[in-house]
């Protein structure tokens, strides 16, 4: 790239005459431009179950292995891939004993996967689903296998958050360790107080989530991503019947500001966090099929998006929920992009307090945030949400015909992270350099006119990493791989 070097040389500030001081010009690789490579980690397909309200909703009598089995089978069936081709399956889960290590193996056999396909689970709290993606991507990247399934599942009807496990009494002498025991609702209050997110703001955010989700549901937006599940349901009078679940049952179309304002604080007597502006406890599962591009193409499988990079950030345990405010800028910096470059942000709404804080802190225009609603309306099955958001995100991008999506989970206790996904199938090509102080070298497609750079960003609490995904590029003039 001799010419690029020459031009870069012209912009270097050495030997500058005159007293002008300027922002540093820095040349950085723009992730938007990485060309297609056989080693790319691509997302082939993803599906989820509907999300049911815990203890009262559609899946209250459904064991998590059934939820998981349904999505795993459906994803493979949709693309016509036989399960023996999977190199590994990783499932995010939080509440099951041992994070569900045995339960998922049962699920695998319920799906008819051969015993030669390995499976394991991962628990990074609310980021587990996303961490599963990270893990599978890592396995592909380190050459362990070519195709893998990354899933998430949770039944909060059958298990609750509670037992912290066996921890030392020394925990009480260590402030940060002690903070790990703070109930989530209290961390929400902490965020609300510390950063001045008023009850009104939280309720407004919650209302927006409900409205967006119910509109999306009405328009049939979720039909593409939900796989219907036939399951058992026990009535109040103890009678068991079979139902088919294909709709999220947590959404409340009739939500109003007045209705939300009437709710009593749920965690602290004079607090601002209520049941209405918190995410719901829910049941659900999601699965995403990932693969190395060369194998995906060899098997004639479709490509929904390409993953590029990961990052993990930690935040104070007592302010769990501010994760995205750290993860998102880290991801943007890595990719040489800015909030303005991103079209859609999916930020997990663990609580309206933290979600609103992150949106405000990063200056993200509200119309870009969670276009189809978030966890407040849809529900938050802990281990599942990360994977669920990827599915929702990719489908949203497909619908918009837009080029880039970013998915951001953020973590509660220690980690915060971001996944960025590109689902662009436009072919455009631009130089892989972004001069920070000038306008980005946005590409032009061959027919004239600039292709829009649109991105999605979504965040889930508890998450741990950033996966950056890039569009399908034609073979470019340079190729710079970013290590995962």
């Amino acid at each position: 790239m001799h010419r690029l070097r020459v031009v870069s040389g012209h912009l270097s500030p050495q030997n500058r005459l005159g007293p002008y001081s300027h922002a540093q010009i820095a040349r950085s690789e723009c992730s938007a431009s990485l060309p297609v490579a056989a080693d790319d980690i691509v997302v082939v397909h993803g599906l989820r179950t509907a999300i049911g309200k815990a203890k009262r909703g559609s899946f209250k009598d459904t064991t998590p292995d059934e939820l998981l089995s349904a999505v795993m089978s459906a994803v493979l069936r949709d693309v016509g891939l036989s399960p023996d081709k999977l190199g590994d399956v990783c499932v995010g889960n939080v509440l099951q004993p041992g994070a569900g290590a045995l339960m998922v193996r049962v699920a695998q056999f319920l799906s008819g996967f051969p015993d030669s396909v390995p499976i394991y689970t991962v628990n990074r709290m609310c980021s587990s689903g996303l961490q599963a993606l990270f893990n599978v991507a890592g396995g592909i990247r380190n050459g362990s296998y070519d195709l893998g399934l990354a899933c998430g599942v949770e039944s909060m009807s059958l298990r609750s958050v509670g037992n912290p496990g066996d921890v030392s009494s020394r925990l009480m002498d260590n402030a940060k360790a002690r903070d790990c025991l703070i109930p989530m609702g209290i961390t929400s209050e902490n965020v609300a107080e510390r950063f001045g997110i008023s009850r009104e703001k939280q309720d407004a955010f919650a209302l927006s989530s409900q409205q967006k989700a119910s509109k999306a549901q009405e328009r049939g937006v979720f039909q593409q991503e939900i796989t219907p599940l036939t399951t058992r349901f026990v009535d109040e009078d103890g009678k068991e019947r079979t139902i088919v679940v294909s709709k999220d049952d947590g959404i409340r179309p009739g939500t109003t500001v007045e209705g939300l304002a009437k709710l009593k604080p749920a965690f602290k007597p004079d607090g601002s966090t209520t049941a209405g502006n918190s995410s719901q406890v829910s049941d659900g599962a999601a699965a995403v099929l990932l693969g190395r591009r060369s194998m995906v193409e060899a098997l004639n499988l479709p490509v929904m998006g390409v993953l590029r990079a990961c990052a993990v950030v930690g935040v104070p345990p007592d302010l769990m929920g501010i994760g995205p405010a750290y993860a998102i800028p880290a991801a943007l910096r890595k990719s040489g992009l800015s909030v303005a470059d991103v079209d859609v942000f999916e930020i997990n709404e663990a609580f309206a307090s933290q979600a609103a804080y992150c949106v405000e802190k990063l200056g993200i225009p509200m119309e870009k945030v969670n276009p189809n609603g978030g966890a407040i309306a849809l529900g938050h099955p802990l281990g599942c949400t990360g994977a669920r958001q990827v599915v929702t995100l990719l489908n949203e991008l497909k619908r918009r015909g837009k080029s880039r999506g970013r998915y951001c989970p953020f973590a509660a206790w220690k980690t915060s992270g971001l996944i960025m996904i590109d689902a662009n199938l436009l072919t455009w090509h631009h130089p892989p350099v972004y001069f920070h102080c000038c306008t980005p070298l946005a590409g032009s497609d061959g027919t004239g006119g600039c292709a829009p750079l649109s991105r999605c960003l979504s965040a889930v609490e508890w998450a741990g990493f950033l996966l950056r995904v890039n569009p399908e590029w034609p073979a470019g003039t340079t190729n710079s791989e970013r290590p995962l």
Partner: protein
Amino acid sequence: MKTFRCPSRHGYAAEISPFLPSRLACAASQHYGIAGCGTLLVLDQDEGGIKLIRSFDWNDGLFDVTWSENNEHVLVTGAGDGSVQVWDTANPRGPLQVLKEHTQEWDLERPQSLCTFRGHEGVVYSTVWSPHVTSCFASASGDGTLRVWDVKMGVSRLVIPAHNAEILSCDWCKYDQNVLVTGAVDCGLRVWDLRSTRQPVAELLGHSYAIRRLKFSPFHRTLLASCSYDFTVRIWDFSRPEPLLETLEHHTEFVCGLDFNLHIPNQVVDCAWDETVKVYIPASLADLQPCAD
């Protein structure tokens, strides 16, 4: 101001025909000249705007263009692959001639170079014939020197260490055969008198990034224009204590091409990476009378 948009093509050089005041050419490249092909745009301006007369494509970027001074239809472009193309606007099919090896001087009557001038120790960014002395030309180089050459001699007649940075452009004063200006990556313009080259006659500061091209006005002795990576075109009069007359910020990308119209006083054409070519009369010049000498 008249604007011509060339989608997907980023302008590197623009020059107005010495024969037809309404005719101009722009050498432009795809993908900012970093990769891809190039297009030579032959344009015509009238009161309504600028329209495309003809365009020629080349399979590498085109980075400079100049009109022939003995044939109104002929122009020459320099390409990224090291070749020089001679085009005829009356002939749409392709270049009349393609000459390879850009370090050499060409006689269009002969396909081989007439002469090679060695001396510079860096990229030669710009060469300009003297408008006064027929065998003389100047060159600006990445080695920081401005050199003046005589075609009859094989070596440089004069070497001026003009800047401590790469010099991207130079031009002769049209009214004084000893005066030249250089523009460099250090963001400064320096006006030189060949009779005393120890220090510049004037140093013009104002640009915030490297100067890409300079032109002396054909109508005024001390007036010149410069365009830069800082997206601006600036008009200077180095005879004044405050030499910067005007800063034009009508581009949104690096401005690479610049030329004065020889027939329409004070009319300027420029082109930039933002896919536009613009023709205008800068406000600071609009009121000036052409120089009497």
